[in-house]
């Protein structure tokens, strides 16, 4: 028993990720944490997307289940789980059954290397970014399997569309990533890294986010990635695979109930995963704004209150809306529920002010804040853009983004080579 406790304690205070330290107990704890956090994020994202999109479209969105529809995702989840699971008679049973799990596995496995903080990652791989791109590209297989196994025209066309799309945009995406990885090698030894944590540390060491590096090269690479990642996750305006008006629902037309919800889960976690890549590569990962410029104790303290203040702000919003609730007996439960939700948020906010907590949570907070920015962009795109046509999409990928990516890569390499000669002779 003592040995076990000692084993568990031996990791505390380590400056490595649990995977790198080889501590199986903490690896399991981190996996559970990431998995739960991701599921909660997907549920929250579901509600936020519906609310934000609704407000963009001059309507209210879910309002009935729970205060301001807060319980709507849970109601939806229950509905989906209880629904009948239909399998077409002509479908290929095994593949039809496996496909959603492949997609979900591919989406979730990527989070093994996502660095939420210098030590807050399940593990730190030497090939981190390569692993992430590779595993996220596996979801293509699940999509093709789903489309083919349904044995129906619409899912098949949807699957072919999305696989072609994802394979094409992976190329541009890879080039943009390579140009960012190239920037990590601008140090004394001249060796770069593919490790996700190493990339963020390189940004810290060089004193700027890669989006601003070699302006505008970093920005262009980021832009290429930002476009390609929307295409990669099959979201508007690149949601051809699930173009409702053309292919009913694309590759998951024949799916229902629980298995359909797995596709949904996979889509949202894939969105979070690619946003995490973008944040890690160009936006400084877990680093707070101006970590080098505004360093020192007072600044550290100022930035450490941000997480708590954010949650208090959300709590204040809840209380404001509690006051605005209609004063009618029918709304009593909802009012109390909203107030309770506000209290919970406020308590979390207060806990985050405790120095011991805020020091540990800060990195995760900044990372999550940056990722939520991307999530908002996803919703915004969906609200404003029509859908691309397939050939236009391909043209965009191969004739615009790919040459741009190549150009940026070559220019970045050139500037990286010339920089020491010109600026530091």
């Amino acid at each position, binding site marked *: 028993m003592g040995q076990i406790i000692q084993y568990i304690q031996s990791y505390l205070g380590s400056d490595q990720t649990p995977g790198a330290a080889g501590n*199986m107990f903490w690896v399991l704890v981190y996996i559970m944490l990431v998995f739960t956090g991701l599921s909660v994020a997907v549920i929250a994202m579901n509600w936020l997307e519906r609310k934000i999109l609704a407000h963009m479209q001059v309507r209210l969105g879910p309002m009935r289940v729970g205060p301001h529809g807060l319980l709507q995702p849970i109601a939806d989840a229950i509905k989906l789980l209880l629904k009948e699971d239909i399998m077409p008679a002509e479908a290929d049973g095994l593949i039809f059954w496996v496909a959603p799990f492949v997609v979900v596995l591919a989406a979730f496995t990527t989070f093994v290397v996502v660095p939420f903080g210098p030590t807050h990652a399940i*593990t730190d791989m*030497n*090939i981190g970014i390569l692993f992430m791109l*590779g595993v996220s*590209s596996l979801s293509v297989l699940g999509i*093709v399997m789903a489309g*083919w196994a349904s044995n129906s025209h619409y899912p098949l066309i949807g699957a*072919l569309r999305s696989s072609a799309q994802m394979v094409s945009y992976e190329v541009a995406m890879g080039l943009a990533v390579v140009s960012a990885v190239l920037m990590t090698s601008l140090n004394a030894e001249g060796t770069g*890294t593919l490790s996700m944590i190493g990339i963020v540390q390189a940004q810290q060491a060089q004193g700027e986010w890669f989006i601003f590096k070699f302006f505008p090269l970093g920005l262009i690479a980021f832009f290429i990635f930002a476009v390609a990642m929307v295409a990669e996750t099959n979201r508007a305006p690149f949601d051809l695979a699930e173009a409702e008006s053309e292919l009913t629902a694309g590759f998951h037309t024949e799916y229902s109930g629980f298995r359909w919800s797995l596709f949904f889960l996979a889509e949202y976690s894939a969105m979070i995963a690619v946003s995490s890549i973008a944040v890690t590569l160009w936006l400084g990962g877990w680093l707070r704004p101006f970590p080098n410029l505004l360093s020192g104790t007072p600044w550290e303290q100022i930035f450490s209150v941000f997480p708590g203040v954010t949650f208090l702000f959300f709590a204040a919003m809840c209380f404001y809306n509690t006051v605005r609730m209609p004063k009618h007996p029918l709304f009593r439960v909802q009012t109390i529920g909203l107030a309770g939700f506000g209290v919970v948020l406020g308590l979390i906010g207060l806990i985050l002010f405790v120095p011991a907590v805020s020091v540990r949570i800060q990195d995760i907070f900044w990372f999550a804040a940056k990722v939520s920015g991307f999530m908002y962009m996803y919703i915004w795109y969906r609200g404003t853009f029509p859908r691309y046509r397939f050939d236009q999409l391909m043209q965009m990928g191969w004739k615009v983004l790919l040459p741009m990516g190549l150009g940026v890569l070559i220019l970045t390499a050139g500037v990286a080579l010339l920089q020491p000669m010109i600026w530091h002779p």
Partner: protein
Amino acid sequence: MAPVATPFFFYLLSGIMLIGGILVITRKNPVHSALALIVTLLAQASIYLMLYAPFVAGVQIILYAGGIMVLFLFVIMLVSIDRSVRERQFNSQWVVGIIAATALGGLFVTVFIKGKEIFPEHALPMVENDNTQKIADLLYGAHTGQYMFAFEIASLLLLVAIIGAVVMAKKRI
């Protein structure tokens, strides 16, 4: 991160690989074959990780499983498979083929039995942390890049393959 429980994972993964390989060559439906092959390739990527070759594992996943196999699936869906599933699956010289393969297998077994001793019992120590950097050095390091020329030739080969594939598959050039 040193591999843990090596024998267990080795036997698990090699079991998956062999079953996958058998499925590849026995399934009627090419799509099933392709999926079995993907499982085999992913298991092999894991075995690469056990062999301290993370970069090769990553390339295996991203190129083989994510690229080549998607290409395969694509082509399988493009050419209609309904007919070929109902047809005879094995060609007329399959007996000869099996005999030849068995002969090859016998050769392998003989070689293994004869040459068992030449393999060292314990592998030499290897560091994994800078695997990618070391491979990069070998490929295009300023002084250590022994494979620079081969690398360039490989890129030329890919270019030829791209042009060849486009020319072959296009209806009108």
